[in-house]
Each structure stands twice: as structure tokens, then as C-alpha cells.
């Protein structure tokens, strides 16, 4: 069987999502046996010009350089996978949409010119994204089962159940009852409710569930 040609790339982001692939310690060697990692700038070469089957893209587009890399890679790959919350929803860097530039720009960005040229946006606002692996950082089991599926020609199924499912299964008390603003009921789970297990509110890193909510006005 021909091995799938896979690339792991990162644009603006903390590289934590690529790390959570490496954190797959116990089964990392098994995974590497199944696929051909053609490029991984993090640990291997760049290889921007090769052809790929799957590209796992971490991070979001925050400047024109990112955009250029993203468009180039999209042209070279059959499938594009958004790895992690930044690529999927924009996550923390995209908070810039909700703040006034005047308030912070002079503090940090006065010398870095290229930061001003584009608003930070998740990768699906520039290119077609075929699959998402959500989470900040993504769950390593989810990455593993995703790779397991694509290697065997199974269409990977995203986990769409809300965080409440796992939170209740972990026998946590409800944070909403304690008057904490938890986004668990409307957020996609699959994280084993790691935040709420430790008494922190869910802040929605995995994006909204696909359960068909309507916004209440």
C-alpha cells in the first residue's frame, strides 16, 4: 500500500498543536510507520513545493506572508486539515477583532510594520478546509484516530457532542449553578472536559457544536 504523503505546517500560532502530535509518545512510532511525513518545518525540512495528500495546518493568517504560504500549500495538497483552534476558529490571536487597535498598537507593534497589513483570520476564510481537528491544543487521541482513519480510507468523523456530555460523565458539579460563565453546553466537546474537571469555565476553544442552535435575540 502506498503511504500517504503528509505535511505538518505552522503559520502564526504557538506551535502547541504541532507539539501535541509529538506528545503522542506511546504510539508516535506506529503513526510514523503508517504515513510518509514529507515536510515538517518544526523538525524536518520545508519542502514547500512537493505534492501532498494531507496537510495539517496549524495557526491562523495574521500577515501577508502567512497568506502566501497558505495559498501555496493549498495548491499542492489534496486535503487541508485545520489543526487546532487557531486554524479552526482564530482562537486568541483573533481577539484582535474585538479590541480597538489604538489601545494596544503603540505598546507592542509600533516597529513591526507587517502586523498591520491584514486582520487575523482562521484559514478557512482564505482557502477551502476539508477537515478540522479542533481544540487548544487538540486532543492527542483525536489526532491519532484521525490519522488512523485517513490511512484506512475512512472518512474521519468529527466529534460534535457538547462539552456537557463529558463533563457530566466525569461527575462534575455544574459551573453555571455556581454562577460561573461556562460555555460548555454550546461548545463542541471531545476534550474530556479538561477545563471543567479542574473548576475552570469552558471558554469554547473547540468552537460551537453542530446541534442546530438558533441565536436568541
Amino acid at each position, binding site marked *: 500500500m502506498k503511504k500517504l504523503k503528509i505535511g505538518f505546517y505552522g503559520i502564526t500560532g504557538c506551535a502547541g498543536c504541532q507539539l501535541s502530535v509529538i506528545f503522542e509518545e506511546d504510539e508516535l512510532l506506529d503513526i510514523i510507520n*503508517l504515513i510518509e511525513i514529507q515536510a515538517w518545518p518544526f523538525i524536518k525540512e520545508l519542502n514547500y513545493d512537493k505534492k501532498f495528500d494531507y496537510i495539517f495546518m496549524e495557526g491562523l493568517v495574521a500577515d501577508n506572508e502567512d497568506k502566501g504560504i497558505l495559498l501555496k500549500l493549498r495548491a499542492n495538497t489534496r486535503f487541508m486539515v485545520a489543526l487546532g483552534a487557531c486554524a479552526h476558529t482564530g482562537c486568541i490571536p483573533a481577539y484582535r477583532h474585538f479590541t480597538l487597535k489604538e489601545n494596544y498598537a503603540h505598546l507592542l507593534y509600533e516597529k513591526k510594520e507587517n502586523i498591520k497589513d491584514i486582520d487575523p483570520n482562521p484559514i478557512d476564510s482564505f482557502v477551502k478546509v476539508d477537515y478540522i481537528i479542533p481544540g487548544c491544543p487538540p486532543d492527542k487521541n483525536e489526532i491519532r484516530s484521525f490519522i*488512523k482513519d485517513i490511512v484506512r480510507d475512512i472518512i474521519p468523523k468529527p466529534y*460534535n*457532542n*457538547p462539552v456537557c456530555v463529558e463533563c457530566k*460523565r466525569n461527575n462534575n458539579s*455544574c459551573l453555571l449553578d455556581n454562577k460561573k460563565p461556562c460555555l460548555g453546553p454550546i461548545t463542541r466537546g471531545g476534550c474530556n472536559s479538561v477545563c471543567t474537571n479542574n473548576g475552570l469555565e469552558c471558554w469554547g476553544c473547540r468552537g460551537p457544536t453542530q446541534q442546530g442552535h438558533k441565536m436568541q435575540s
Partner: protein
Amino acid sequence: MNLVVYILKKDVMYDFLLDIKNKFETYVPIKKDITRFKILDNPKDIDFSENSYFPVKEHFFRKKEVIFQFNGSNFLPVELKSKNKIFFGLRRCDLNAIKNQDFIFMKQHNDPYYTSQRKKAVLIGYHCTKALNKYCFCESMNLTDYYDLMLFDKTNYFLVDAKTEKGENLIRKYKKYFKKSNYKISDKDTYIKTRKINKKDISKFYDHKDWDKGINLCLSCSACTEMCPTCYCHEIHDNTEINNPRNAKRIRSWSSCQLKEFTSVAENHTFRDTKEARFKHRIYHQLQYFKERNKINLCTGCGRCITGCPTKIDWVKIINEMR
């Protein structure tokens, strides 16, 4: 079954629990941030002031269970391990919920995984003296007596009623803690005053507009079914090994009718695609469909689906207000 009622003094109860703790895995309600059934450590921790937030369903109908393994050519059955467990302080609603689950997993279907866990468990009830919270409604759910032992709280002592052989044996084994009494348990002891559902049959209200009050607030988060002591929906999936796909485990895990995934089939078709259909389905299954088929109420009126709901949808109130 038998008419002998025993007396267990409250201070003796602590000694009794310490004693059974050595032989059984004893679960008692312990209040921290919420009340949960936990393994007994110090008997003074026991708190009967409220019902446990989560039911004890997970001990019998496991959240995740390997049904069998497969190694490419052979089935490898799993070993059914279970411990001797005692559940101390179950409420009447939860005991009836166990009765309903026994009916589903042991009478309707012979489920070896459930049976192996359930067979060894001893259920000791604690009878409510009043409604535990403003949401429970067990009075209208026709609950029956289903327990091994039941404690009736009489301020400084308990009346203990044994219903089964298992319970009787436990008392015989630890008879130094119990005294015989001539008291007869009457309807007055077993009556709990709660709010009620004022409709016996809700089949003709399916299209009533009042359901919207609940549907608009519902987030389809499935907290209600996760906390329900009677919900028994589950999904089964295969988990293959990464380097050898012929080695697989078949796993049964909880699922919920509130999730879209539950009714989605090939070609991405979902039978209960709308929130409305899912919301009504749970209530109708609990109150209507199950009763029509099996002549018993599935719901036992514990009210957990309302206490656990993020938006506190009081569907009992919605039904009661329908005209």
C-alpha cells in the same frame, strides 16, 4: 414479603457501616460541592439532606464497557468482574429507576454485563420524609417498593424493612446492630408529598404550542439524559489497534437522544434533526412510549433532568400548564 421490621439506632448505624465496610465496597451519599455517592471512609460524612446529584446507574450500566475483543480470527470474550457493593441511602425514585433498568437489562434482554454488576449489589434505601427539592415529582409516578433494605427515618432511630432475601441475610449477618420491632410499615410511612403531573396521557398534546417554552431554551446539551437514572440509550463502536487493524475491541458507551449524532445514519441523514423532535422525544419516551409498551412508567420523578439543566427547563410545569 416479611412483616418483621427492625430498629437501627442512629448512633449504632455508624458502627454498622464501619463493620460492613470491611466486607463490602460501601457507597454512601457524601456532600462536598454537590452530593455524590462515594466509597465510605468516615461514616460521619454521610449527608441525607439532599439527593445525590448523579444517580448510581453508572455502577451497573457502565459508561464505557468493552463487550468483546477480536483478534482477526477469534472472539475473545471479556471477563466479567464485579465486586460486592452496598449502596446505602438510595432514594425511592432511584430504587425504582434501578427497577426499571433491571427490567430492561435483565428481563427484556439478558445483558450479561449489566447482570454481573447488578447481581452482587445490595441496595439499602433511605426514605424521604418530604420532597427533596422543588423539582421532584415522584408522587405522580406510581413508585413501588423495590429494595433490599429500606430505612425509615424516625428522628433518633431508623425502622428497617427488609424486602428481599439479600437484605434479610445482611440483617442476619449483622444482627447485633438490629432489634426486632412490632411496627408495621403503612402507607403513611411510604407517602412522600411532592408536586404532581396533572396529565396521565400526554399523547394528544404533541403539537401543543406550549412546548416552545422549553424548546427555545433547550441547548441540546444532553445534560438531562446524562443525569437521568433511567435513560439507557447507548452506542456501540469498534476500536481498532493502530498498527494491526485486525485486533479490535467492541465498546459500548452511553449515548443520548438529545444528540444529533444519535439518530444520524449513512449519507448524513438524521432522523431527529430538529431540536424540537429531540426535546419532545425524551419526554414522550419517559412518560408515554415506554408505558404504552411495557405498562410501567420509565420516569421515576427524581427531577434530575431539571436540576442538571443549564437553562433549568421545567418541563413538568410546561406540561401542567397545557390546556
